[in-house]
């Protein structure tokens, strides 16, 4: 179980720093120096590597998702830091990012030189090092490249978070990946980080919608009193509850095993909720939710963006469904009750 004090501390850091203005400024400038400074000062990016557990780090990500924290928290510790530490490379103290691995990437490694182009790399333009996981003749290699060894072309996702196109041409720190660390493992772990962020965002979005509809008065009463509006409130709360529970289950399983079933299931549900919950929240907010000045878009745009990162709906439903079909009718209920212990995905 994660220490409630850790969650409280994270809540404090993010609620102090991730103000509306700070998130807007981060989107304009591509970096939130103030947020990162506080987050780093408290050590939140490196929890899983320094004394804490993976579950702790994942629970902090969930809080980060609530506050739409515009920093590479998932990338620095849970993804890049994990790749580096597992292969014996130094993690260092600055912000890191990871190459998610898109089909159109063209990375090549010769000796200790990394070349080629990688796409959709979070915050590449501002981090100290970019970490890539590359397959070289059937073996997986971890390469860490400092900013001097690359050129980052600014790109953003739907939420305005940096997702840069990076051209590498320089020396890298190279090491063999730890056993079990391969492209698939990175994709699952990446998906798990997005599940946690999305669970937090869905939870906050539900609270925001309940709060807004309690205050907004039309026809002489708060709009939350109308059954038609209540339907949206309930949809948002259901999505938040379901994905929240799935995120907990996936995080718990990931601390014990590869948790492929749980992560696939949780990411699929989070992706689906990105549609149903944002539709409900926006409908309940009316025109106000479509404005820049109101905070809903900090959450809804992130949910839309994260939905496509580390596996979209079709990717996870066909992977999970394929495994279910493969295992057959006898394994269906055991999978529902025991997850990865009963079904290999």
């Amino acid at each position: 179980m994660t220490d409630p004090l850790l969650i409280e501390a994270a809540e404090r850091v993010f609620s102090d720093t991730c103000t509306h203005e700070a998130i807007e400024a981060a989107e304009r400038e591509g970096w939130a120096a103030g947020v990162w400074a506080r987050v780093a000062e408290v050590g939140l990016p490196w929890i899983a590597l320094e004394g804490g557990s993976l579950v702790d780090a994942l629970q902090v990500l969930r809080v980060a998702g609530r506050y739409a924290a515009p920093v590479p928290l998932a990338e620095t510790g849970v993804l890049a830091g994990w790749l580096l530490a597992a292969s014996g490379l130094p993690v260092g103290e600055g912000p890191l990012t990871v190459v998610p691995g898109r089909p159109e990437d063209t990375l090549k490694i010769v000796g200790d030189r990394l070349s080629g182009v990688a796409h959709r790399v979070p915050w590449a333009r501002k981090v100290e090092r970019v970490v890539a996981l590359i397959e070289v003749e059937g073996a997986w290699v971890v390469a860490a490249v400092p900013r001097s060894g690359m050129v980052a072309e600014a790109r953003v996702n739907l939420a305005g978070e940096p997702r840069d196109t990076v051209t590498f041409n320089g020396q890298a720190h190279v090491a063999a990946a730890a056993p079990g660390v391969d492209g698939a493992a990175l994709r699952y772990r990446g998906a798990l980080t997005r599940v946690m962020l999305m669970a937090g965002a869905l939870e906050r979005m539900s609270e925001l919608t309940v709060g807004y509809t309690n205050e907004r008065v039309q026809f002489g009463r708060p709009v939350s009193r109308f059954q038609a509006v209540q339907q949206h409130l309930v949809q948002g709360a259901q999505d938040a509850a379901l994905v929240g529970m799935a995120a907990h289950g996936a995080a718990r399983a990931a601390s014990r095993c590869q948790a492929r079933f749980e992560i696939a299931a949780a990411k699929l549900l989070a992706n689906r909720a990105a549609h149903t919950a944002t539709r409900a929240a926006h409908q309940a907010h009316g025109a106000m939710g479509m404005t820049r000045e109101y905070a809903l878009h900090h959450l809804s745009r992130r949910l839309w963006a994260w939905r496509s990162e580390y596996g979209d709906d079709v990717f996870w439903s066909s992977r999970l469904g394929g495994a279910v079909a493969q295992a057959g009718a006898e394994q269906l209920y055991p999978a529902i009750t025991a997850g990865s212990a009963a079904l290999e995905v």
Partner: protein
Amino acid sequence: MRFEPTELTGTELALQKDVRDFLAAELPPGTFVPGLGMGAARDPAFSRKLARRGWVGMALPRRFGGGDRSAVERFVVVEELLRWGAPVGHHWVADRQSGPLIKRFGTEAQKQRFLPQICAGELSFSIGMSEPDSGSDLASVKTRATRVDGGWLLNGTKVWTSGAHVNDWFIVLARTSDEADRHEGLSQLLVDLRSNDLRVNPIPFLDGTTHFNEVLLTEVFVPDELVLGEVGMGWAQNTSELAYERGGPDRWLSTYLVLEHFLRERAGRATSEQAAALLGEATARWWALRQLSLSVARQMDRGEAPAAESALVKEMGTRFEQDVLNGVQQLVDLEPSLESSSVFEQLLARAILTAPSFTIRGGTNEILRSVAARGLRRP
């Protein structure tokens, strides 16, 4: 609204295995016609067998023949029975709600009279809430109990009373006095369905089955000792009864077997992209919904009253039951028939014909959304 994540303990997992082993031995696949969740067949002999294993009235006190087990342990047993399509019809209502209601509000004499027989899988119950003019708006019930010497005279009509033609008792919500607040002045009375003073008329269901009834109560004498709980407190008691009825595995497993048998029928064949998508999404949803539902059971074991949480889960679970069915229908090129020799096709046909009731029975989804929304508005 809060859902604490929880897992089954070692003891609970052992219980799960016991039930699985029991069902595999007692009802091997192919030897019985599986039912759709709580709509499964009634088989008093099976109910008695379950009772001998201690799996009926589990959460009732040991001194009345129950097991003093937790809501979670009951969850584990019920879940396995439903996903197996076991014939739970005979004891279902008594086990889920009438027994716990009597335990909570009944007198010592009532507990001694009813609970041991419920725990033995003998006594069966129906629900006496709905009336021709009172569905979602239950406080408007017109069935009236009039004070007479030594008890009450009951007059009125109850409808949609499942199993009234075969069950032993039902708990009737009736007006015992007129008050300014119509939620006051209601009471619950235990009524013998075999009494000569009541008439049970079948209301055929749209698929031709006859589990539905109208019950006409004409001058039915109910002695004081069969008033359940306090006179005038029927509304609060009834509301707590509904909480037992909501949020459990019966609210998301009704079409489980349709998908399992779909999978069985297609064994060895290539899986289309659409079939994989349905299988993936349905499995993911069951996995997560089950944990929400389990979390509600844990809350009940902690003595909390998760009314809003149960409503939220039931609303989501019952819609999902219908979505699974529709998903399967989109994948199969056949004309579903109750007369088919294929278990899959029978289940599919039966599910299509009964699915609209999933989001109505035990509180319509519209009412559930109001209950859940009220819970959300509370800080």
